[in-house]
């Protein structure tokens, strides 16, 4: 392809309509308490992994619901599944299970099962 010395800058607009929400739907179906999340950030405040890295479960949950899957997949590896977030959640969301189900969903997505 021709090189003219400049490029087409891809827009940085997030188009939620075109995002893939299959991972989020998979979790909602199996862990309905995830719908109760109000993104307060109590989980992030107590997070062992977040204490030492940039990992934020609050951010993770928001982007998971929006279908920003490439970010979510990358962050998923940082969680140690200690479960402190579940203990402090004011809405009783089983956040530990959300992470587990997300891992499961990505494996199934790769195997074309989701």
């Amino acid at each position, binding site marked *: *392809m*021709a*090189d*003219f*010395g*400049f*490029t*087409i*800058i*891809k*827009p940085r607009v997030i188009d939620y309509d075109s995002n893939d929400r299959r991972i989020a739907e998979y979790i909602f179906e199996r862990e309905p308490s995830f719908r109760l999340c109000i993104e307060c950030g109590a989980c992030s405040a107590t997070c062992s992994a977040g204490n030492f890295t940039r990992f934020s479960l609050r951010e993770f949950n928001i982007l998971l619901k929006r279908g920003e899957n490439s970010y979510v997949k990358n962050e998923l590896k940082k969680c140690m599944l200690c479960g402190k977030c579940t203990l402090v959640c004011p809405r009783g969301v089983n956040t530990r299970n959300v992470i587990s189900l997300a891992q499961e969903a990505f494996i199934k997505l790769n195997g074309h099962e989701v």
Partner: protein
Amino acid sequence: MNSEGKKRIWSEYQKEIADDHFFYVRSCIRQSFFPGSEQFFLNFMRKDLGKDVFENPSHTTCTGIGYHGDIVPFSTTMTVVARHFALMKESGYKNIAISCVTSFGIYTEILETWKHFPEELEKTREYLYKATGREFDIPENMAHTSDIIYKFRDEISARAKYPLINRMTGEPLKVVEHIGCHYSKMFPKYGIGGAEFPRVLSGMIESWGGEVVDYPERRHCCGFGFRQYLVQANRGYSLSNTYKKFNSMKPYKPDLIITNCPGCNMFMDKWQYTIKAMEGTTFGSAGDSIPVLTYEEVAGLVLGYSPWDLGLQYHMVQSEPLLRKMGVDFNPDDKYKTKDGKNMPVPQNLINS
């Protein structure tokens, strides 16, 4: 339904366009890249409608490209435009017809500046007098040439030989109208329909039988942007604008784009080639690109002028698919022939040909 209020409000969006005796000022880009457009305007006004349109060969650039490129100071631009007004005064004309949207924007900006800052007008009079010994009057009526074609659109419609209808399906052609930003976005009162409802091109399309495409980025800039384009390293900004606009119109499968601005016409035409060369994307139906024509070229096609006399072969995106849809009778062998029958060099890498 009571429509009086609506009519009153809409009347505020109209502008007065002179009927005759125009002092015509050309466009730098149009006379270089789409020379048939200005020629059509002059022929149509003078021969078909019998109007008086005067051109002065001493007319120069308005400095618009230099001004928006930040290399010409505003006081210089005002003095150059004042000289145009002086030429108009010397020729005995009071109505100015401007071929270029950039110039139109410059003229409106200057008239508004003089209105709100009369001391600038006095300074400009002094500069011009000292430099050239000339004096000038502010024009009584200022119209862009698309305003004038809009005014006479029904005359064109009445003489139409090839209306904007797809002869193969009988459906109206889907036409994207693109109005230059400097036509009415800066000073809305100078444009028909203002900045919110610019009517100048959609009025022509509807009058000539076409269907106007209303797509999300309809009022988005073409991507010219002067400074963004003039520096090569910045051209990605310009191109990305155009790319966004074309992606937005693509699902509506437009048959044709009409513009009233030289820069928009040039960029929407040539960037289609660039995008195709860079990543192989086209935006028209069936893998074609979308022809981008000036309102005069479209008016000429509707009236039955030869597409080669209108200069359609000078565009990057060739118009043959459109001509076939409209049922225009044309001879491909005449495409690159001069008036005396000689063959011109054939450009390389044209699209849709």
